């Protein structure tokens, strides 16, 4: 009989906190057995600004998810975003020590250690070390062990963040009596769900345009070669509409969701839309052209920032599979067309695989689904230190629903 483990995938977003409950059975099955969501408070651009408010909404979402699943969550997989997250590519090198120039385990370990040993400033901690392909005497190899060569190189995309900001999010989870078992950045989680292996091999960009931030991940040759966070999201669109049209944020959000379009249609220049629609005091006509123009300008700017961040990686040659858009803002009509135009890439809306049940295929759940996928595959390379659940005391504690820190 396989032992099952109940995990919670938590994405504390700027607009919404989403929780999915998964039951890991053995090493190959994850049943999604519950979900919960709550409007976020105390979160700005993916970072905790009000601990109490953030805890309130996160705990409510977790409790709702536990209630819908009728189980108690054992541990949490937490998505991370925020502009404090940075990434850097570090290359490590080792001379093959064998007299016959055959690569041994020790050679690989030395190359890996060399790549990972880059010092970070104080107050910064690593989140991921994502391995890129090995190079043996300049040639890319998938598995260098027992191959012949003299110089072994390996690259790691290392993601690090502010210890204090990470600690804030961890404490929010801890305050609910749960431990964070693993932490995955949002773009990787979402990317793992909306891209296929062939697209990762060819080269693809995944843009997760959320409320407060836009997270991106670039895949090439099946590896993650770059990630990043741009502190621009759907909230900026709302804010721009609010200022540009002189309406309050509530009405601006209403206009964005109901009449917004990423492209400016010059033929619809004379089209008017009602601000409220019920002829009450304050209700007035607004040109839809203006709404689209404001949204278009901000989105174009966002894509320009993305293109700039990607640099040489953002070309059609490097990313033949194009760009996949996910996240709440990706639901804005025409955004894929604008992205394709602005980034000069094939653009499409990311969609979770068919095996995901209909209610969870939307862009809202792609990050949380990615966390569960990550928990199942558990393929985080590098500094993973799995929390041991072995031992009689821990088993008894688990039976009694107690937590060991």
């Amino acid at each position, binding site marked *: 009989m396989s032992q099952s483990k109940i995990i919670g995938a938590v994405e504390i977003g700027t607009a919404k906190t989403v929780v999915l409950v998964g039951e890991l059975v053995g090493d190959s099955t994850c049943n999604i057995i519950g979900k919960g969501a709550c409007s976020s408070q105390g979160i700005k651009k993916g970072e905790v600004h009000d601990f*109490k408010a953030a805890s*309130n909404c996160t705990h409510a979402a977790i409790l709702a998810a536990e209630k819908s699943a009728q189980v108690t969550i054992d541990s949490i997989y937490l998505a991370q975003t925020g502009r404090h997250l940075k990434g850097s590519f570090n290359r490590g090198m080792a001379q093959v020590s064998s007299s016959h120039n055959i690569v041994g385990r020790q050679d690989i370990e030395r190359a890996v250690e060399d790549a*990972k040993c880059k*010092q970070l400033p104080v107050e910064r901690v690593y989140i991921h070390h994502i391995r890129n392909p090995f190079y043996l005497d300049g040639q890319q190899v998938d598995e260098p062990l027992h191959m012949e060569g003299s110089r072994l190189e390996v690259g790691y995309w290392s993601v690090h963040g502010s210890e204090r900001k990470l600690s804030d999010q961890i404490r929010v989870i801890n305050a609910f009596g749960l431990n964070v078992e693993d932490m995955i950045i949002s773009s990787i989680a979402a990317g793992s769900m909306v891209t296929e292996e062939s697209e990762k091999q060819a080269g693809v960009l995944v843009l997760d345009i959320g409320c407060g931030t836009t997270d991106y991940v670039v895949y090439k040759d099946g590896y993650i070669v770059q990630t990043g966070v741009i502190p621009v999201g759907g909230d900026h669109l709302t804010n721009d509409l609010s200022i540009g049209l002189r309406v309050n944020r509530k009405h601006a959000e209403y206009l964005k969701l109901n009449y917004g379009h990423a492209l400016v249609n010059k033929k619809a220049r004379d089209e008017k839309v009602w601000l409220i629609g019920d002829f009450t005091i304050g209700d007035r006509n607004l040109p839809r052209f203006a709404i689209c123009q404001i949204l278009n300008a901000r989105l174009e700017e966002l894509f320009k920032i993305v293109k700039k961040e990607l640099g040489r990686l953002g070309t059609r040659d490097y990313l033949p599979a194009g760009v996949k858009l996910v996240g709440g803002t990706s639901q804005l009509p025409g955004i894929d067309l604008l992205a394709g135009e602005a980034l000069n890439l094939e653009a499409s809306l990311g969609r979770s695989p068919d095996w995901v049940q209909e209610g969870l295929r939307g862009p809202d759940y792609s990050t949380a689904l990615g966390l569960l996928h990550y928990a199942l595959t558990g393929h985080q390379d590098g500094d993973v230190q799995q929390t041991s659940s072995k031992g009689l005391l821990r088993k008894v504690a688990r039976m009694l629903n107690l937590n060991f820190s």
Partner: protein
Amino acid sequence: MPPSNKSKSSQATNRSWRQIRQAAPNNSVTVAAQKRKRIQLIKASATLVGLVALIGGITWGVTAWKSSGAMLELSDHNDPIRRILFETDGTLNETWLAQKLSIPRGTSLTEVDIFQLKQGLETHGQVFAAHVERHFPDTLFIELEERMPSARLAVQGEFGVLETLFVAVDGTVYPSQHYDSGFVKTLPYLDGVKLAKLDSGAYKPIRGMDEVNALFGMARRDYPDLAESWRIVSLKMVTPEASPFPASLIVRPRKGPELVFSTTDYRQQLEKLDVILRDLQRRRGNAGLQDIESIDLSLRGPAVVSFGKVARR
């Protein structure tokens, strides 16, 4: 000593988010967390209670299974009785018991009808109550509560042999060979008694023994010298249907006058008798009681002292 810069920088090098300390706060920050904590506490308590109940149940089950196994084992053995434990508060002994029980050798404990044994033992007049128990695997336990005699009867047996019967406090009449002769001599003989037998062969209990016991008990306690000489007590007048006179006990000492007591107030009558005897002793010396035939204390008012023929002359 403060850490060196070198160690500080090396600390920063390989730090992972996993080194951030995770610990649940003592107080729940949010209502949801409090609610979850409560639910967890209830669940933990329920699990604990369930575990304790399960362990208790298993322990009880194992104990019960073991003990029932032992019982089955004994009953399967069907051992014959090897020992009879006998306890009594009287004078009956193992020899008498063996004759009375007459259990065939090799009889198993389960074959013995202990209720029948009890009834059999209680048919003997000396046995007031019998208690019989099976002590597995091979022991029969018998405990007797015996009657104590308060008087004796001299009757003529079938072949003209004088036989002594004993009369217990409750009037039960029974023969016995198990009393010490010294003790037997202290018992008064009963007179004026008509013995009758029941269908079971036992004697019909004698009425009036409670009066004999009350009088002798008080006399032995308060006037032991006096009571010691009382040899025969007659119950002829104790039953109202036998006589138109009030119920009375007639006591005949070894020497001296016959004493007549009414069954009403023995204390007053004994005091009166003591006064009379002392007075006679004081007035007449050693010959004081020689010619006195009876002293009747049963009448209201003064006692009647009857003198013999010599005295009357």
